[in-house]
Every structure is written in structure tokens, then in C-alpha cells.
């Protein structure tokens, strides 16, 4: 598996995002899971990611930066079990899940911080390849230029770019080196912005998909968006489902202390795409028929304050807790406390979080407008807008232990069948097809 024409292991120039322990969402989780599994298949990966520049100023968060390794710009994985992966970083303020608006805000903030600190940081700016003070689109183009510069010193057979901000880099690298391009669609502008599509972002996505030799989508749900809204020809688009990293608990959970109060969990970015308001409206309905329930919203995002307000407005403020962004152990802890996980996404290309919930023995309700509902049978499914039905199902899970038990047992078993290994195999076979001379 994963051999090129000469029978050697395929080498991939992969333009990705985030690696542990700094993962902020599904995109980083997917890049990590897929790359790790490719490593085990023997596929050689040069993993290129933007190095966050904020790390120089924000000291209370430990971020991956060249300072954490001895040789700036290039280093082997911090994960010592990755033997076939080489990491390359490009200094750039680009971040997963950024939007042009959030990018500007963040840039202003970091410039202000820099001014306040008044420190001379020029020594570190040498590898920046010019001014990055423009808007996000300029930064994306600059990132592409830097990627091409990096690619010239690398040997690889195929270029693989994850989500829209890296598409121009992927297109440029493929054009310069003549290697085939695969773009991997983890989400589209339609998922992130509903019908208020940012035309520039859309154009970048569309160009990336058009110029790619293969487009990988994380679900049939997303595949149909790629075909119908971006006009990409169907034979070019393949579905590779995400997997889940198994680290779930076998022992905990079963013997957990019986609490009087039930806990229903929302975990994810609090943005329009994730449907936080539907969660709150459903919570309100649940509280009409049950009292001993708390609703926890774990995550942050641009709708966080609006959601706090909405909870208050609905008169359920005392029943809804906001934890902010959780990571690592805190995520595990909240899963252990939860009786039910709800993902009310308005449009979810895949949705890894419910798989993690099941892996942690928490039953799930997922929206039908999600890729993960294509692969999960042992989950409750609702239309995101149907808050009545969402509440109906929440009440049922909380009220009937046999329902919880059956969902948990079957769901946990089902999740074990979704492995990154299979996703990596599918990607490798797509590479192989591309490398066969036509």
C-alpha cells in the first residue's frame, strides 16, 4: 500500500493544520489522525503547517514554535513514534477556523501587543519572507509563495492540501513541481457561513477544487455540496470518512456515581455552523417537563456571548453553564460527567466530536445535516431546526436508562470500526491512481 511507480513508498507534501497538543477542533484532529495512520502505512509525509506568530508575545500559552526545537523551520515530529513524518513550519499568523474578520481583529491585537511590549523582535522576522501586515487573502498568497520556496528543497510525489487557506499553496506547489494535487475538503464556505457566502473565500475554494486532480470530501453530504455548489465534476470527488483515535475508557463510566442532576453536553466551537441557539431552545423545552437537568456548553466562538444572553432571555440561565474552551483532561472529565452529547450543527461536513463522545461512553444526538450521520447508526438523529424533536429525544435518553445503555453499548462498538487506518489506506490508493501514467 502507498507505493509509487518505482515501488518506493509514496512521498506526500502535505499542507495541514495544528498538531497536538494544540488542537482547537476537528480539522487539526483530522490532520493528525490521518498523518499518524499514513506514517504507520509507511507513507512518507512532509507536513507543512503555519507557525503561529503570536507565540512570541503570548507567554501563558505554550505553543508550538521554532523555539521549542533546536533547528528552526524544520524538525522531526515531537511525537517520537512518527518515523516517516517530517515537519516544516512557515511563519504565518494563519490559523485553523480563522475568518477574514477574525484574522484582522487578531492581527490588530498582536500588533498592539507588540507595540506595547516595545521589544525589538526583528531577529525572528527574517524567515517571514516579507510583510505579512496585509489582509488575510494577501497572507494566504504569501503563504503559498513560502510553500513553493519550501517545496523546492523537498522530494515528493503528490501534494495534499487541507481546507481552503492552503489550497492556493497547494495549487502553486503543484504548478511549480508538476506533481498531482489532492485537495481535502473538511468544510466549505456554505457550512461555515450558511447562505452568507464570502465570495473571495468561495472563489479560492473553487479554484483549488478545479485545479486539483482529486477532491477528497469527508462525507457524501459534503461531496454533494462540492458537486452542486462548486460545479466540480462528480468523478473527481471521492469520499473518505474520518476516523476516531481510540483512547476511550473501558473502566470508568460504568460505575459512575449516581447523580441526582443529569448533564447534557454541547461541545464544540460556539459558532453559527454549530447551531448553539437550537441547543438552547431545546434545553428550554426539556426544562418544561424535567427539572433535574443541567446543560453545559463547552467551547468558545463568536456566538458565545450571544448564547449566554439567549440563555438568560429564555429564562434558563441558571440551568446552562458555559465552560469556555476545554482541552486535554478537562474534555475527558466533562465526558465522564455527561449523560448525553448533543451536536445540533446546522451544517456539519463530518463531525468528529460525536465519535469521541461515543468513545467515552456518552450516547449522542446528532443533526441529520451532518456527515457523521452517514456513518453512525447507533445515534439519535434530528433535523437541527426541529427543537421539539431534539427535546423529545433528550428527555427520552435522560428518562430511560435502557435507551442510554443500548445506545452506549452499540455506539461504542460501532465507533471502533471507524479507523484512521482505513482513511489513510483510501488516501494512499487515491495517490496511487494519480501516479499511474495515463
Amino acid at each position, binding site marked *: 500500500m502507498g507505493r509509487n511507480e518505482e515501488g518506493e513508498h509514496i512521498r506526500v507534501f502535505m499542507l495541514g493544520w495544528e498538531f497536538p497538543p494544540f488542537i482547537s477542533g476537528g480539522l487539526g484532529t483530522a490532520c493528525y489522525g490521518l498523518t499518524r495512520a499514513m506514517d504507520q502505512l509507511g507513507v512518507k509525509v512532509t507536513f507543512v503547517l503555519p507557525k503561529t506568530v503570536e507565540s512570541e508575545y503570548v507567554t501563558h500559552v505554550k505553543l508550538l514554535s521554532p523555539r521549542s526545537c533546536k533547528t528552526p523551520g524544520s524538525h522531526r515530529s515531537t511525537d517520537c513514534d512518527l518515523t516517516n513524518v517530517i515537519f516544516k513550519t512557515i511563519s504565518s499568523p494563519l490559523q485553523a477556523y480563522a475568518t477574514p474578520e477574525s484574522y484582522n481583529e487578531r492581527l490588530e491585537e498582536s500588533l498592539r501587543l507588540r507595540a506595547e511590549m516595545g521589544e525589538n523582535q526583528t531577529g525572528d522576522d527574517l524567515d517571514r519572507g516579507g510583510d505579512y501586515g496585509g489582509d488575510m487573502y494577501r497572507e494566504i498568497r504569501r503563504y503559498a509563495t513560502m510553500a513553493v520556496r519550501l517545496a523546492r528543497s523537498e522530494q515528493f510525489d503528490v501534494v495534499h492540501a487541507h481546507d481552503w487557506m492552503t489550497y492556493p499553496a497547494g495549487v502553486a506547489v503543484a504548478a511549480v513541481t508538476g506533481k498531482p494535487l489532492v485537495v481535502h475538503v473538511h468544510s466549505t464556505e456554505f457550512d461555515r457561513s450558511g447562505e452568507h457566502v464570502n465570495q473571495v473565500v468561495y472563489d479560492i475554494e473553487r479554484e483549488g477544487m478545479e485545479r486539483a486532480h482529486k477532491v477528497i470530501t469527508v462525507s457524501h453530504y459534503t461531496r454533494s455540496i462540492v458537486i452542486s455548489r462548486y460545479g466540480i465534476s462528480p468523478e473527481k470527488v471521492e469520499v473518505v470518512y474520518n476516523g476516531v483515535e481510540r483512547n476511550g475508557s473501558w473502566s470508568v463510566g460504568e460505575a459512575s456515581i449516581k447523580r441526582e442532576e443529569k448533564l447534557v453536553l454541547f461541545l464544540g466551537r460556539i459558532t453559527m455552523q454549530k447551531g448553539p441557539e437550537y441547543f438552547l431552545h431545546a434545553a428550554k*423545552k426539556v426544562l*418544561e*417537563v424535567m427539572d433535574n437537568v443541567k446543560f453545559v456548553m463547552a467551547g468558545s466562538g463568536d456566538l458565545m456571548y450571544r448564547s449566554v444572553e439567549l440563555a438568560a432571555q429564555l429564562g434558563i440561565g441558571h440551568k446552562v453553564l458555559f465552560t469556555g474552551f476545554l482541552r486535554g483532561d478537562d474534555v475527558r472529565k466533562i465526558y465522564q460527567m455527561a449523560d448525553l452529547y448533543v451536536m445540533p450543527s446546522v451544517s456539519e461536513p463530518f463531525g468528529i466530536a460525536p465519535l469521541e463522545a461515543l468513545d467515552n461512553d456518552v450516547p449522542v444526538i446528532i443533526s441529520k445535516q451532518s456527515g457523521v450521520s452517514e456513518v453512525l*447508526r*447507533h445515534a*439519535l*438523529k434530528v433535523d437541527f431546526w426541529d427543537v*421539539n*424533536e431534539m*427535546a*423529545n*429525544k433528550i*428527555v*427520552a435518553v435522560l*428518562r*430511560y436508562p*435502557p*435507551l442510554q*445503555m*443500548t*445506545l452506549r453499548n*452499540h455506539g461504542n462498538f*460501532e465507533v471502533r470500526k471507524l479507523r484512521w487506518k482505513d482513511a489513510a489506506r483510501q488516501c494512499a490508493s487515491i495517490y496511487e491512481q494519480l501516479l499511474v501514467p495515463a
Partner: protein
Amino acid sequence: MPSVCFYFQVHQPMRLRHYTVFDNDQRYFDDYKNAAICRKVANKCYLPANRLLLKLIEKHRGRFRISYSLTGILLEQLQMYSPEVLSTFHALAQTGCVEFLAETYYHSLSFLYSRHEFVEQVKKHADTIEDLFGQRPKVFRNTELIYNNELALLVEAMGCFDAVITEGADHILGYRSPNFVYRPKGCKHLKLLLKNYSLSDDIAFRFSNRHWVEWPLTASKFSQWVNAVNGNGHVVNLFMDYETLGEHQWEDTGIFEFMRHLPEEVLKHPDNNFKTPSEVAASYEPIGEVDVRHMISWADTERDLSAWLGNPMQSNAIHELYRLEKQIKRANDEQILSDWRRLQVSDHFYYMCTKYFSDGDVHKYFNPYDSPYDSYINYMNVLDHLQRRCAGSSIQAVPRPSHADVSSMSVAN
């Protein structure tokens, strides 16, 4: 001399409507969907099949004989939605060549949970059949052919049955053949008729399967298989869902043509004949005893109860249902009793089965729900409401038009 014994199971569940925890009325059933399905199946199966069999019975002047088991819950729906089907059943009854079997009125699993309720339902069913078709059933079949020694003992003790029917499952027969009459262990008079599942399933399941080596199955080929029993069996029991004719096997598979020619092909051999279950029981003596300690059924390859009681949701739902029995009967309200009994229909629990859910298969075909979880949630919401109604707690009883009881209706000739 093999006798061919046909028994068709005729049943339609009464499906629940979408009922959430926020609903608070007594309309539990999806009248629209039930009517639509009942009429659809009537047109595809019940009417054409009844007319065909009626013709065949007339043509063969008493030599072609068949039997039916019609559930009470089906009869109620036929009366409401397709009364013309009842007329054709009535015409079949008048030929004297058709036997009607006994079962629980509500196609229920009551034998497993309440003997008292079980006996009441069997009696209610027998009364209904007698009122409609002028004959009191003499042979009993339990829901889904669920059976064990205890069932046989209870049926014998009821004193009104000559025989009981069940699946000729390999693991109860061992090397023995289903083509004889047996005696249930512990019984003195009751006889046991066993389904020949191989020949029955050739018609019910394999008939239209083009990958089957015997496809296409013709009446003359099938008759030769029946003839082959000559000398090593008394009876070939062909038991199947009536919906096989036209609904499970569509008309274009040739299933009606097959049935049209089957009687004459079978009767070509001078030793063959057709008998109803009562006639089989009267004609042949038991050749041995069959000992069934564990519950069996005719479902799936397991031939056990796992399709209805295999997971914690199913078992919880049914226990909660029967736990209400005393309370329901104490309430002394016909409508409450009828709703509770309609919730006993075994299909409700079949919908909650997770056994083959992951593969999506035959279970799915019969299932109005997207998932077994949805079906459990819906059922529990209804049951919860019924319980509150029964407890008389703060819910105001809203009068609604009651469906006439079938036992008191008349059938137009």
C-alpha cells in the same frame, strides 16, 4: 400419501403516530398511515389472493382446502378501511373448505408475561372468528409461532383445541422430519403440527430470487418435491405470511400464476390431497413426542425470541407494558383497555430490534421507523401517557369516536 396443508398468517399491525413527550392527547395511532397501508395491501394481496383461492376452491370442488389465521387487530382495520376484504373472507368461509385458526386477538406476546391476559385474548379472538365466519377455531397458533412445552400444556388445558402449530425447527427435531404429526411433551390429547420450513420458504422467501438454483419455481416442479415426501411423511405443512402472495412476492414475479396451477399439479398424483390443520389432526396419529424446553419461533435464522426481546429497550418496554395490567383492568375503561391491548401487538417490539440494524435487511422492510431507538422513544412516550391516563392524574379524558368492536359487526355477503 402426503397431505398438503396450507396455513396463511394474515396480520397488519396498528402503527403508532409520532408521539412526543410534549403530546398530551389520546390519539396514539397513525390512522392515515394505517389506512393507506391496509388499502395498499388489500389491493396487492388480500383481494386478488382471496379471489384466486376462492376460484380454485370452486374449481376443485372440495379437493383444494386451506386455512387462515386472521389477527383481531387486522380484522378491526379491515372493517374500517377495506370492508370488501372481509366479504371475500366470508365467501371463503362459506365454501366449507377453509378453516380459521385461533391466536391471540392482538398478535401479542402475552403468553410470556401474563397467562391471564393470554387466555382472555385467545377467547376474544375465538369469539370474533365465530361471529364473523360461523366456526369456532379448533387449532391454535401462537404469535410468530412462539412455542414451548408449557404453551402446549396451557393450550390443552383450555380444553377447546385439537392441535397446536409451530416451527419445525432443526434443533427441536434433530434427525426427525416435520412431515408427521407429533405429540407435545406432557400432553395427552393435543397434537402438534410442524412447519416444513424448507418447502414453505421456497415459496415465501426464495420464489423470486434469481440467484437461487431452482429459479424459476414452477407449480409442477414444486409438486414433484411434494411427491418426494410420499412414503416418508404424512403431511407437508406450508405455513407462511399471506402477504407472500402479491406483497412480499409481487405479482410480476408470477406468484399468482404459481398458486393458480399448484392445486392441479399436486392433485395429479393420486395419493396426494389437501387438508386443513384440523383435518390433518383428525387423520393422523402422532408418531412421537417433541420436547421443547426453550422458547422457539419462526423468526430469523435464530428461530428464537431475540427479534422481540433481544435488547434492553425491548425488554424494558414490554415489562413496563405488562406491569400496568392490574392498574389498567382496575380502571374499568373500555378505551383504556383497548389502547393498552393494542400496545401489545408484537410488531411494536420488533421495530426496536437492533440485531440486524447495522446491516439493514428484512427487518427494515417492515419498519416504519428510521431506527430502533426512535421506535422505543415513541412507544415509551405513548405508554407513559397511557399510564398517566390510567392513574387518572390531572389529564382530562377527551371523548373520541370509538372504533366499533369487530366482534359485533356484520358482514355483507
